[in-house]
């Protein structure tokens, strides 16, 4: 096999942009929640897992078109995420030790969700057929049409997020709260609504990421761990709390990863990811694109 061929590299590049767009979907939500409400959501991987299972369920059991199933998963996981926030996270808002308490609560949510999924869907790995069985060929590159669909939807969602944050009242208020919560409260911004919106968006994007990747990987109750770690790495690379940074870092990571796969075995992916994390924190703790001095 020719390893250095231009076609292959172009193909992996495309694949990298695809993976990158999904990583960004995962990481942006995690980063938003940290940037706006100073909390870490360790249940973020479970939103990914739920999105994958919902997509599986609606397309296989209810025979809905899988792309519409992804959309349903997007909405349902968003609602779930908003409910979790309002029922068990917002009420402890005023208590001391916010960071630690929210870590423990989201860990609890993660354990509960994983075990519910285990009860409902079982331990067996579930697989979903591709969205479209068709291969697109151009310039000597062969890429599955389903992959292009995944990339397209992911990019559309990201564009939608960008529009939302830049142009709607809630989006602009979110930025304000992220910059200074007290000041935002003083001028009368509805904190609870803004927090809820952040959580709904974050959960929905993770759910969509799970749904989109469901036909690429198998689905099982702990499937959310690796995407969660990838989101960590993206967020560390891009600078914690920075959306722009997460976007750059996500695409960079996706591309680097898909090129590295040509030369490295995937079994060691986790170790490489961890080594990168340590390296970035040791030499550039604010992230490759970040300027915040935290």
């Amino acid at each position, binding site marked *: 096999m020719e390893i250095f061929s231009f076609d292959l590299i172009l193909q992996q590049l495309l694949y990298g942009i695809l993976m990158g767009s999904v990583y960004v979907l995962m990481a942006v939500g995690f980063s938003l929640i940290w940037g706006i409400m100073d909390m870490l959501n360790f249940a973020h991987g479970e939103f990914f897992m739920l999105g994958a299972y919902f997509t599986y369920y609606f397309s296989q059991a209810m025979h809905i078109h899988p792309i519409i199933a992804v959309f349903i998963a997007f909405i349902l996981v968003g609602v779930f995420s908003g409910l979790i926030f309002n029922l068990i996270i917002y009420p402890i808002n005023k208590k001391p030790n916010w960071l630690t308490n929210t870590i423990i609560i989201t860990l609890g949510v993660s*354990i509960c969700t994983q075990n519910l999924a285990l009860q409902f869907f079982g331990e067996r790995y579930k697989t979903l057929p591709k969205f479209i069985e068709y291969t697109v060929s151009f310039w000597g590159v062969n890429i599955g049409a389903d992959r292009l669909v995944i990339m397209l939807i992911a990019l559309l969602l990201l564009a939608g997020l960008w529009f939302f944050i830049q142009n709607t009242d809630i989006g602009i208020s979110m930025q304000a709260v992220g910059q200074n919560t007290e000041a935002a409260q003083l001028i009368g911004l509805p904190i609870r609504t803004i927090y809820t919106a952040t959580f709904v968006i974050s959960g929905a994007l993770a759910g969509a990421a799970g749904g989109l990747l469901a036909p690429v990987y198998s689905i099982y109750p702990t499937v959310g761990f690796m995407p969660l770690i990838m989101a960590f790495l993206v967020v560390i690379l891009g600078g914690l709390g920075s959306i722009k940074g997460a976007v750059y870092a996500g695409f960079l990571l996706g591309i680097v990863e898909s090129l590295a796969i040509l030369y490295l075995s995937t079994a060691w992916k986790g170790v490489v990811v961890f080594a990168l994390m340590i390296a970035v924190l*040791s030499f550039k703790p604010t992230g490759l694109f970040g300027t915040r001095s935290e």
Partner: protein
Amino acid sequence: MKNKQILYYSILIFVLLLAPLFIRQQYIIHIMIMSIIVGVLSVSWNIVSGYLGVFTFGHPAFYGLGAYSSALLALHTGMSPWLTMLLAGLIAAVFSLLVALPTLRLRGPYVAVVSLSFMLILEQVCYNWTSLTKGPMGLAGIPELTNIRLPGFEIAFDGISRVPNYYVAVLILIVTMICMYAIVESRIGLQLEAIRDAEEAAAATGVKVTQTKIIIFFITSFFAGWIGGFYAHYIMLLTPGVFAFIIMASILTSTLIGGWGTLFGPLIGAFVLTILIDNLKNIGDIYHFFHGAFLIAMIFFMPKGIVISLRKALKLLSKVNQSH
């Protein structure tokens, strides 16, 4: 006050030492050993989280790392498990620097994020490195602790009685308790609380913040690795499941039952939790769900732990009584 505390601890240790004389059922001894394992983890974790105020997922990682290190060393080098247990502690402590050095000098949540990644990635490595760890099949045939021969009698670790293992666990617990007590009561203990309550102020008065954090991380990880090594030689079968979220949940629950920032509350918590879980196991794997729900409920209603909440309630009650 201090003498009273030491008295309580001595009574506790005394009770633990005498317990096997009155307990004949091996199963109860097993539950007590498991409680002590969770107890050692929780007590040492609580020094990092409760006293230093740094939230880490490192403990389950170092526990699992210790277990695998000790088992593999004993299997492949033929060293005595007594020695490999201690080496496992050292290995865990050295690896803790990997997490500690880049993250502890930074503000914010990096420790939690990196330590959680470390735990999940170790699990992945144990799954995938099948030539070394046998992957999901589990590492079997881990040697038991070797018998101790003293003139006149012999302590046999033969799998018939669990009592010898129990005493090893109690021994590790006692060493842990003494070390943690020494840390908390020393100058370092005050420095830890100063860092937790006001890091800048502590640094301004000359506390070497990062250095202190890293030392504490190192020491507590040693105990996590050591007890992990003991677990390996006690259970004699390891699967990548030792790096589970649920171990973190157990540590957290014990600490929440016993109380944050109290030295030995988590040990009591560990006993309560292990006994509870043992009774809940009849309902099947869904008990994990209740474990998670319990964590959420604790933070919701008694974020400082049951012991501290009870103490507060009692104080309130006595005040009400006095005013009548």
